[in-house]
């Protein structure tokens, strides 16, 4: 099959977030102000606020799979199985070599490497005690590979490393592969197991970018004057994507259509964001969707609650949307769940998808004192907002080394 400019639609969603293990539960908590951040004990560091998922891994996996595999693999398998069930597709009957698995990851392998070093420290650092599972657990394709093993998928299955832009990248890449005719059915999105590596906490702490607060549920506070950094979280969200004609032929429920996207790079710093390139990314995605800024009804921000990063994203959004977009509303999902890293983009999109049917925009919570530098027209603060139009969602996800991604999903209209 050759290049195919079909419309690409979302037909299934499977997720686990720190505040919900299904789209229904997640959405309900986003509308009711229920955050999912808790205290965790981090090796060498002590008690820190973090977002932990509480799905039952034995729902789909055997104990042996859990023993051999990774947390990221387990999260991926849970989300993939949930998405497949939700899609209503007859997966057993589908040719497995025409299925693609594309999973975005911020990082992979830190958890497993730290665990092995810790384990051999108990044996005087004798490497004879280093696990023979270390390499299959830490290869960068591990989460996607575990899903392919679990489902018997023989088509392409790999991860996409894109720092914290990775969740969006999973969807974008899947849409591209469906259009290229490389696969007929895609399982895609992003996952993170980052709460199990002390390194990511310690790294943010050394960078002065790790959140602290006496109440963990209030620790992630983008746009608030008192914000003081990132809450590290795990999570996963995988979608089933199909070409529109295939989805219609099987009578699938359609959550929304991939309308447009852009991925670009700052080429300016290892960690500092670049609002000029972010604005460029947003503008290009809007143009790619054949829309204008005023046609975007929900902007889901990437903002992670770092003092500088939030201001810079707001600058980029202000530059694109300005004052002339009365139907554009802006929110942030990390205020509920912290930063789910590779899963962030995919989860945050999912949290907003139900707006197409309920016409409610979930708020950004934990804003007691809005930072004037983060003030934007249409910012939905602390309480959900019923809106007149909810036909388009623009989802920002940015990451270190200057990778930016913007994905636009619109309500499906025949």
């Amino acid at each position, binding site marked *: 099959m050759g290049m195919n400019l079909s419309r690409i639609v979302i037909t299934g969603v499977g997720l686990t977030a720190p505040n919900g293990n299904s789209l229904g539960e997640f959405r309900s908590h986003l509308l009711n102000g229920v955050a999912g951040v808790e205290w965790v004990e981090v090796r060498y560091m002590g008690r820190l606020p973090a977002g932990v998922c509480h799905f039952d891994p034995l729902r789909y996996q*055997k*104990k*042996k799979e859990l*023993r*051999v595999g990774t947390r990221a693999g387990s999260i991926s398998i849970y989300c993939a199985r949930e998405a497949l069930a939700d899609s209503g597709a007859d997966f057993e009957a589908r040719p497995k070599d025409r299925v693609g698995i594309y999973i975005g990851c911020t990082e992979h392998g830190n958890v497993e490497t730290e665990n092995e070093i810790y384990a051999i420290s108990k*044996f005087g650092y004798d490497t*004879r*005690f280093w*696990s*023979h*599972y270390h390499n299959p657990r830490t290869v960068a394709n591990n989460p996607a590979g575990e899903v392919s093993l679990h489902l018997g998928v023989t088509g392409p299955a790999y991860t996409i490393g894109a720092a914290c832009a990775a969740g969006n990248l999973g969807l974008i890449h899947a849409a591209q592969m469906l259009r290229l005719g490389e696969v007929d059915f895609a399982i895609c999105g992003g996952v993170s197991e980052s709460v199990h590596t002390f390194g990511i906490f310690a790294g943010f702490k050394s960078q002065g970018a790790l959140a602290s607060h006496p109440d963990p549920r209030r620790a992630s506070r983008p746009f608030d004057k008192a914000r003081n950094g990132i809450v590290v979280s795990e999570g996963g969200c995988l979608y089933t994507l199909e070409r529109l004609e295939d989805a219609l032929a099987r009578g699938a429920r359609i959550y929304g259509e991939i309308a447009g996207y852009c991925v670009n790079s700052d080429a300016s710093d290892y960690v500092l964001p670049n609002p000029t390139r972010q604005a460029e990314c947003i503008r290009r995605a809007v143009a790619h969707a054949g829309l204008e800024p005023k046609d975007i009804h929900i902007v889901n921000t990437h903002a992670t609650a770092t003092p500088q990063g939030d201001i810079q994203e707001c600058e980029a959004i202000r530059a694109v949307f300005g004052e002339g977009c009365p139907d554009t509303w802006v929110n942030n999902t990390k205020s509920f769940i912290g930063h789910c890293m590779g899963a962030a983009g995919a989860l945050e999109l999912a949290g907003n998808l139900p707006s197409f049917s309920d016409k409610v925009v979930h708020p950004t919570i934990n804003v007691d004192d809005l930072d004037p530098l983060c003030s934007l027209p249409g910012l939905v603060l602390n309480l959900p907002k019923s809106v007149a139009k909810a036909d388009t969602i623009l989802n920002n996800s940015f990451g270190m080394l200057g990778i930016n991604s913007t994905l636009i999903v619109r309500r499906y209209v025949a």
Partner: protein
Amino acid sequence: MTKDECKNAVIAIISDIAPDEDLSTLKPDVRLRDQLQLDSMDFLDIVMELRKRHGIEVPEADYPKLASLDSCAEYLTPKFNSLAAKS
């Protein structure tokens, strides 16, 4: 250590390596891999756990001696006893 105690030590390891399997009907004279879903990586786990839990080193050339519970007991019991004598 008796051979039966040695078999129990091996079964304790296998129960962690193959947690989904029913080990109550394991036949001691039949190859473990013919009765259980054990692949080569699982087999390496048995070797690793013998090292970690009991300080027993099994050289690669001797791996075939771990084929069944009976052969494990035959091969490992003297090793357990020689370690016990040293300590």
